[in-house]
Every structure is written in C-alpha cells, then in structure tokens.
C-alpha cells in the first residue's frame, strides 16, 4: 500500500542517530597531537554532539512543506491519518483523539498543525510533520465543530453539551473566552454552524433557540456578542461565503435558509429559498445535510435540499432560486470543484454508496460513481485535479481524477469519515 509510520515507528533510525554523535567524535579525537588541533577537535566534537542531539530530537519529524498534506478522520478508532496528496499516500497515523463519531478539523495558518474537534468535547492539536498529538484537552461534554480566527491565534469550539462556544489560545490550547448559548428561561442551546469571519469574529447558530450570534473577539478578554433571534426552526448547519460577507444557516424545521449580511448586520436576518418544499411531502431524513464551504460557479451557488432528492441552485445576485437538479438521493455534501466547473454530491443512507457529478454550465448530472457503501465525505485537492472520497464500509479512501472520473489511487483507512486538506488554512469559513 503506502509508506506509513505509526506512533512508535522508526526505532532503528533513532538508535543510529543516538550512537552517531558518540562513535564518530571518539574516532575523530584519537588523531593529531598538537594542543591547537586538539582544542579544535574538541570543539568539533562538541558541535557534532550538539548537532547529533538536535538531530535526534527531531529524528521522527519530516523536513518538508505541508501545503500538500491533509488528514483523514478514522472515526471509529479515534485516530487520524496524515496524508500526502502529491504521492497519494499515508505518512502517519496519530491515535488517541477520543470519540471522533462526528469530527471536523481546521488548520493553523502555517499549515503545520491540525485542530481536530471530536464528539466527546475533545480538542486535539496534531503536528503534521511529526505525526504527533501535540496536545489534547477535553473542553466540554459533547461538541460538534470549530473554527480558527482570522489571525490564526484563536480556536473556537461549538458545543452541544453544555452548549455554547469556547475559545482557546491556538498555541497553548489554554482557555481564552467562554460564550454561553443561554436563551429563554435560562436554557442552553446546542450550537451549530460555527465559522470565522473577517474582523476577528466568530459567527454561530443556536439550534434550539433559532438564533444567529456574532462574537467579536478583537479584545479576547471582552468578547462582544450580538444576537439575531427568530431566524427559523431548527437551524441545522451554516456556512459563510468565501469573502466572509454572507452567513447562511440552513433550516430543518421549515424551508429555506436564514441569511445575514456580515458587512451590514444592522439589516438583520433575511429568509431566502423559503418556498422550495412547499406543498410537497418532506422525505424522512436519515442523515442531516452539511453546509460546508460554498459550492459556487459564476453567480450560482449549489445547496442540498432537505428531505428531497434535489440540489438547489441559488442565484447569488438576486438570492432567488435559479433551478433544481434531480439527483440520486438526499444530498449530504454538495461541493464545488475549486474551479467551479463541477459540483460533486454524496447522499444520505440508504443511498450512501453513490456520488454524482453535476456540470455547473448545463445543470445536468454528467457522471455517477459507485465508490461503495458509506461514502461520508469528499475533499478536493487545492486546485481540483483530484478528489478524495472516504468510503466507510470499504475502509478506504479513494482518489478520483476529476477529468476522467477514473479511480487513480486508494488508501486503507479504518472507517474513514472527514477528509481535510491543509489548503483550508487560507480559506475563510473552513
């Protein structure tokens, strides 16, 4: 398969590095006899010793760039695979991240570290170069996702239990701010759709309360929180446009999305696409759709229709529906290839063995793939020549060429779910 170092690997290499600074200088010392050359040799020995020790300290870490790296969540095992998207191989497996049943990740802006948000409230910082769990804290009972601030210094986590958002120092994972999601009668709400936005802000949605909140952490010791109530029933997820201007929360309890203009929050929340399911029976939803990133081509955005076998097309100039595309099942992820020419869609149980590709010019399904049961996520390489697809039941991540639709590689992974590449580090809202 591929080259993969697990936690304790590379012992032989390490032993060599340990012995090198001892053996080599001893041999070196025996030669020569005049005092000057003796001191020089002694100095050389010290330098070599230090270099050897330094070398040893980093013996298991890679020296390379990280722009083509990423992680794959192994949700049942509580581990992540560090992967290389150029060689299409695994580099490390990092274990001990707790319950990753619903996990997502963001990256430090130097693209060295991944912050992984686990179901059990765990926040883990993974060093991609050393394949090491740098630090892990359990910050709540039950969490759902997270975001990293515009300046890369703060990591925020949204929680189901006890609800609310907690903010941490990205470097040390020390707590910085606590943003409770208390609403009517002192109840605490589950928080979904947490994203970063320009101006050192975090924007998030209260599932139980039907609210959007904007927290400004320009001064992390005194966060300013603005509340937008009454956005609709059961907002299940949200996204922010790549320019950081519009925040859109999808509604489960009713049709449509709640839109907030972050350039003009004073204009309040506006409902869009509120008619798409009207008069039609909603199908049972066996998996909640996700709103992640902004699948956009030209001025059209592509969104999953809740409880329908459809992808909705939204004209972002008018914020009106521009079309509906009939697809194989209920969409979960609707993701645009980075150039916007194609949109890839995966589906909820029991149709989760299929992926479809939509041509954004003709709005037609141009290709149907059957990667296997349990397709949970898709991630494009930074410029979109390939897409990585996690196939849970096959214990595989499959790599497809997005032009030929041929499968070009596959990697073994234990019940893989989310796939996250480091290019996300430089994209608002991801």
């Amino acid at each position, binding site marked *: 398969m591929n080259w993969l170092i697990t936690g304790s690997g590379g012992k032989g290499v390490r032993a060599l590095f340990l012995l090198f600074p001892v053996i080599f200088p001893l041999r070196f010392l025996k030669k020569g006899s005049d005092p000057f050359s003796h001191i020089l040799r002694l100095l050389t020995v010290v330098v070599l010793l230090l270099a050897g020790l330094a070398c040893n300290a980093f013996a298991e870490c890679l020296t390379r760039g990280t722009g083509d790296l990423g992680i794959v969540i192994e949700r049942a095992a509580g581990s992540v695979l560090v992967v290389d998207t150029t060689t299409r191989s695994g580099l490390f497996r990092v274990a001990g991240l707790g319950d990753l049943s619903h996990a997502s990740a963001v990256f430090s802006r130097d693209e060295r570290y991944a912050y992984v948000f686990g179901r059990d409230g765990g926040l883990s910082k993974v060093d991609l170069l050393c394949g090491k769990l740098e630090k892990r804290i359990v910050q709540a009972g*039950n969490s759902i996702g997270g975001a990293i601030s515009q300046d890369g210094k703060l990591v925020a986590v949204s929680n189901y239990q006890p609800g609310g958002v907690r903010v941490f120092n990205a470097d040390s994972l020390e707590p910085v701010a606590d943003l409770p999601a208390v609403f009517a009668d002192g109840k605490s709400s589950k928080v979904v759709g947490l994203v970063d936005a320009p101006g050192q802000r975090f924007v998030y949605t209260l599932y139980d309360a039907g609210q959007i909140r904007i927290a400004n952490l320009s001064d992390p010791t005194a966060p300013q929180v603005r509340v937008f109530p009454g956005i609709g029933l059961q907002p299940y997820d949200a996204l922010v446009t790549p320019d950081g201007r519009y925040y859109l929360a999808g509604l489960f309890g009713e049709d449509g999305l709640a839109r907030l203009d972050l350039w003009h929050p004073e204009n309040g929340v506006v409902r869009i696409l509120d008619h798409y399911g009207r008069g039609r029976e909603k199908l*049972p939803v066996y998996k909640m759709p996700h709103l992640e990133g902004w699948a956009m081509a030209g001025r059209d955005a592509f969104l999953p229709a809740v409880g329908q076998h459809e992808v909705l097309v939204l004209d972002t100039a008018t914020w009106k529906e521009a079309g509906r595309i009939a697809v194989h099942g209920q969409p979960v992820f609707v993701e645009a290839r980075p150039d916007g020419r194609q949109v890839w869609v995966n589906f909820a149980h*029991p149709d989760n063995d299929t992926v479809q590709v939509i041509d954004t010019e003709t709005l037609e399904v141009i290709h149907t793939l059957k990667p296997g049961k349990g397709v949970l996520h898709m991630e494009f390489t930074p410029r979109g020549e390939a897409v990585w697809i996690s196939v849970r039941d096959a214990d595989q991540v499959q790599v497809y060429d997005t032009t030929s639709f041929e499968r070009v590689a596959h990697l073994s992974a234990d019940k893989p779910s989310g796939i996250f590449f480091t290019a996300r580090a430089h994209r608002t809202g991801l």
Partner: protein
Amino acid sequence: MKTVTAILIVLVLASSPVPVPAAPDSVRQAELLYLLKHDCGSCHGMTRKGGLGPALLPENLQERTRDLLVITVLDGRPGTPMPPWRGQLSEEEAYWLVDVLLRGEAL
C-alpha cells in the same frame, strides 16, 4: 383431562405478557448493530452519548417504556429530525434494537 389441559392453556396464555417478538438471526443482528453504531450514531453519537439527537444510554431512557421507544424508532418523532425507520426495520428488529439500548449492550 381435556378440561385440565384447556385450563392450563388458558393460564399459560393469560400469564404470558406482550408476545415477545422473535429475535433477528445473527447475520441480521450484526447488520443492525452496524446500523445502530453508524447511522443512528450520526445523530446520537457512536457511543450513544448524544449529538443533535438525544443521548441513548440506559440512564437516558429510564422514563420511557419499551413500546414507546419502539414506536419512536418505527414512526419517528414528528417535529424533530428523528425519521421513521419503518420500511427499513421490522417491528421485531425495532424491539431487538430497543432492548440493546435499554440494556446498554454493544457499546
């Protein structure tokens, strides 16, 4: 003798509680546990500690009867994201799964 047998039959019938549905076979049991872990788990957590949906550990289910839980699984909970699983699960299978939950098995 006939009367005794008849009385015995009546007694046995009267004393048996709600008929216990037959358990699914072992292959199906494995499929059901997989579904519980991964598909129910996408909302309720793979460890049943809850997510967007409520926790499903024995202590969380104490106040609900077995029958009510089975109805919830088969018919869903209108007004919430809990979908009906009827059509994908038979009544027997729903009972079997609910018992797994109530006993906290296969965690």
